[in-house]
């Protein structure tokens, strides 16, 4: 017979310590921050070239220009057409993709290690000598316009996009969709993209992150060869402070006739990445809605069966990004779900977490950190954050210690400061005729009914 007592959770073995991998750092003469991590488990390399050319530096009439320019980058260079560019990369099993985001533009490369010299050369050519031919610009623009249309008819995107306009004052870039609006995108020309890249695809303030089966000295040689002559600073810099549209609680529904479900967003302006409350607030959010066993998910999904899932999230950016609870629920339980979300926000803001909840979330955060250092891509993403947000070189070395140092009191304080049920903006997409009356009865705020723009 086995001596196994199934009624008892097995005890954990001794933890095997694992440090964040060593990062070689070199400040290049052109202002680019080079960071290399050697990982040789498999013969692959992940590269991220981060350029400080982001959407948050753009005014409303240029909204989406950083995103569109990044999209059109695959359209070719002074030496190769778009088709030839793709062919040269894919022939050697390499992929390059460029993404415009709030803080900047990231050009990623994934390839096998022995192909890195050739692939990095093509990446450099793509960024330093883009051509933006007319038909490729038109392609990228038509794709973005079509995507904007898709978003406007997708209930989840519609709810999120609408909510952002209610969290932030209208002149804050974060109030708009990151890809821009149909109006701003439609007006963008080849000259706009060329001008934008010429002025803003500059090394100063950016970084080159290389992770994988490669030595730092080899990377330095390649960088000297391909990026040595690249100079200058991005011309357009962010100039705003994130502010809320209002501190009054408001409630609105974007009417979508015949919806079988309501998409729900409840939130308000959050905090910047540099907040001193970062660790405590991260734990507060995990307890509230950042894990499967969070208060929100256990209440709305596991106790009530209202939803397939619910989560809360602080999005940390250079300026304060949104804090938001999001879920989708059936029509008949829409009002009840909003009521429960408000109760959980209230509970967290006023009562704080229990010692047990804090311990569980802390352990989760500390443990999962180690799970996410497995691949070159994961490590490259982490190291990129150091560059993007200007975090200290020892940031990841100290992460677990800092998370474990969070106390119940500090979490309660952070929650009370940054989760404010009286100021939330409640936004739904759904059938207003069906779910509206009960929502009004909650007495949270007067109900505004909006119609989606098509």
């Amino acid at each position, binding site marked *: 017979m086995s001596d196994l007592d199934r009624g008892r959770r097995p005890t954990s073995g001794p933890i*095997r310590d694992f440090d964040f991998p060593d990062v070689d750092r070199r400040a290049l003469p052109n202002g680019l921050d080079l960071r290399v991590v050697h990982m040789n488990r498999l013969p*692959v390399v992940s590269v991220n070239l981060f350029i400080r050319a982001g959407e948050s530096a753009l005014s409303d009439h240029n909204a989406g220009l950083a995103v569109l320019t990044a999209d059109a980058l695959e359209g070719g260079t002074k030496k190769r057409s778009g088709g030839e560019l793709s062919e040269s990369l*894919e022939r050697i099993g390499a992929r390059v993709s460029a993404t415009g985001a709030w803080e900047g533009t990231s050009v990623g490369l994934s390839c096998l290690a022995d192909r890195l010299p050739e692939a990095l050369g093509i990446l450099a050519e793509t960024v330093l000598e883009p051509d933006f031919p007319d038909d490729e610009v038109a392609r990228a623009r038509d794709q973005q316009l079509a995507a904007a249309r898709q978003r406007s*008819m997708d209930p989840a995107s519609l709810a999120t996009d609408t909510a952002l306009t209610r969290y932030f004052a209208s002149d804050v870039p974060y109030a708009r969709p990151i890809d821009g609006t149909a109006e701003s995108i439609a007006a963008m020309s080849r000259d706009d993209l060329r001008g934008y890249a010429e002025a803003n695809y500059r090394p100063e303030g950016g970084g080159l992150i290389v992770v994988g089966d490669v030595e730092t000295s080899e990377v330095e040689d390649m960088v000297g060869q391909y990026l040595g002559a690249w100079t200058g600073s991005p011309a357009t810099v962010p100039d705003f402070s994130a502010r809320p549209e209002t501190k009054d609680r408001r409630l609105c529904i974007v009417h979508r006739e015949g919806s079988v479900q309501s998409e729900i967003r409840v939130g308000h302006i959050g905090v910047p990445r540099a907040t001193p409350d970062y660790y405590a607030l991260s734990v507060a959010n995990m307890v509230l809605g950042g894990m499967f066993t969070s208060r929100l998910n256990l209440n709305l999904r596991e106790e009530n069966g209202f*939803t397939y899932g619910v989560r809360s999230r602080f999005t940390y950016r250079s300026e304060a990004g949104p804090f938001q609870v999001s879920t989708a629920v059936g029509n008949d339980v829409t009002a009840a779900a909003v009521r429960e979300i408000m109760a959980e926000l209230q509970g967290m803001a006023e009562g704080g977490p229990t010692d047990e909840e804090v311990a569980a979330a802390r352990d989760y955060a500390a443990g999962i950190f180690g799970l996410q250092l497995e691949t070159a891509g994961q490590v490259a993403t982490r190291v990129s954050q150091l560059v993007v947000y200007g975090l200290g070189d020892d940031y990841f070395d100290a992460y677990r210690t800092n998370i474990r140092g969070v106390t119940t009191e500090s979490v309660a304080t952070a929650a009370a400061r940054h989760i404010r049920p009286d100021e939330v903006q409640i936004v739904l997409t759904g059938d207003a005729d069906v779910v509206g009356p009960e929502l009004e009865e909650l007495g949270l705020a007067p109900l505004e009914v909006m119609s989606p723009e098509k």
Partner: protein
Amino acid sequence: MSLLSIPFERHRLDNGLKVVLSPDRSVPIVATNLWYGVGSRNEPAGKTGFAHLFEHMMFQGSAHVPKNKHFELIERVGGTLNATTWFDRTNYFETVPSNDLELALWLESDRMGWMLPAMDQEKLDNQRDVVKNEKRQRYDNQPYGDWDERLQALVYPEDHPYRHTVIGSMEDIDAATLDDVRSFFETFYVPNNAVLTIAGDIDPAHALAQVERYFGEIHPGDPIPALPGNPDIEPLIGSTVRDHVVADVPLPRVIMAFRIPPYSSPDFAVAEVSRSLLGTGRASRFYKRLVRERRIAKGVVTYVFPLLSGASMMLVWATGFPGSDPAELEAAMSEELEALSEAEQSEVDRAIALTETDLVRTLERVSERADLLSMFDLYFDDPGRLNSELDRLRAVSVDQIRAFAGDRLGPDNRAVVVYEPESAR
């Protein structure tokens, strides 16, 4: 280390449970991964969606593990976990710091051996609601959300096990009972119908002893019953069959599917590589021609379903722009499918090069290694197939691809679902 030599060893417990162990001690984490040989293809008429609903019930506790404890305990150690249901199988997986391997084994073994004592009507009703919300969120409330239901109904005949979707129908989900849970568990959730793979920071001998300790005393079940319905199927659809949908969708979309040989056939590799020529990367035919050069598609998707019973399915889809004519889009897709009969060797080389990078990247993760090892052992009794995947694809010749285009992608083997936006009318 050569590019693809993932180490592994195989064992089988007396109760029939297959065990695959794949050590890699570079990072102190371990993935546990269980594949059960049951999926939506095992559902008879009137029980569609049950395999997936049952998957949800597997998280509702077992004799020694209270409801929600599974999630709570894994999250507590910083682990991740989930499960998915598919046509031919259901998989359950955790990744945890390696000092907590035993925790994952305890949880998985308790629900494999002692799930039923914890089941009750309240839990079933709760998860039924969760699943119905999942269906609303991911299918019913989504533009194009019913595409797979429409497509499967065109590709597979009435009594075929792939005729219905994994999520099933609301009606059948509503009708599920606790008795169904009991009999499904006793029939399919037996050690002789499962593969357990452990990959990552393990000592194989120690891990095997732990598996024996936790899973060894679970009783085997009867042999798995034959599939309901009739998996035998003609290799070709026989004509072009279509479904034209005018709906509240933002953009026109044309989805085409073809019957292809099942995953177990050597010819399946031909379909996989052909698919890559059409849709993998930006130099692929669909992207190059439809998106980049002709600019009539906003985006293209190509996919092969690795299915076991009778015939598998390859699909290609293209999404148009506002106001564009779906018929024109379909004609352009047809042209590219036909043109594949003149494929060139350089395209095959490109597709293989991209596939190689993608596969190596996938194998960076112990969770992915475990998942693939489980799959190859369950489907083909051969986890070692993981290390010969690329060779299998490399063996495909350009002549085979040219022939495949004519044999399988022509008008005598097409199911077409067209979505036309209401507002365009």
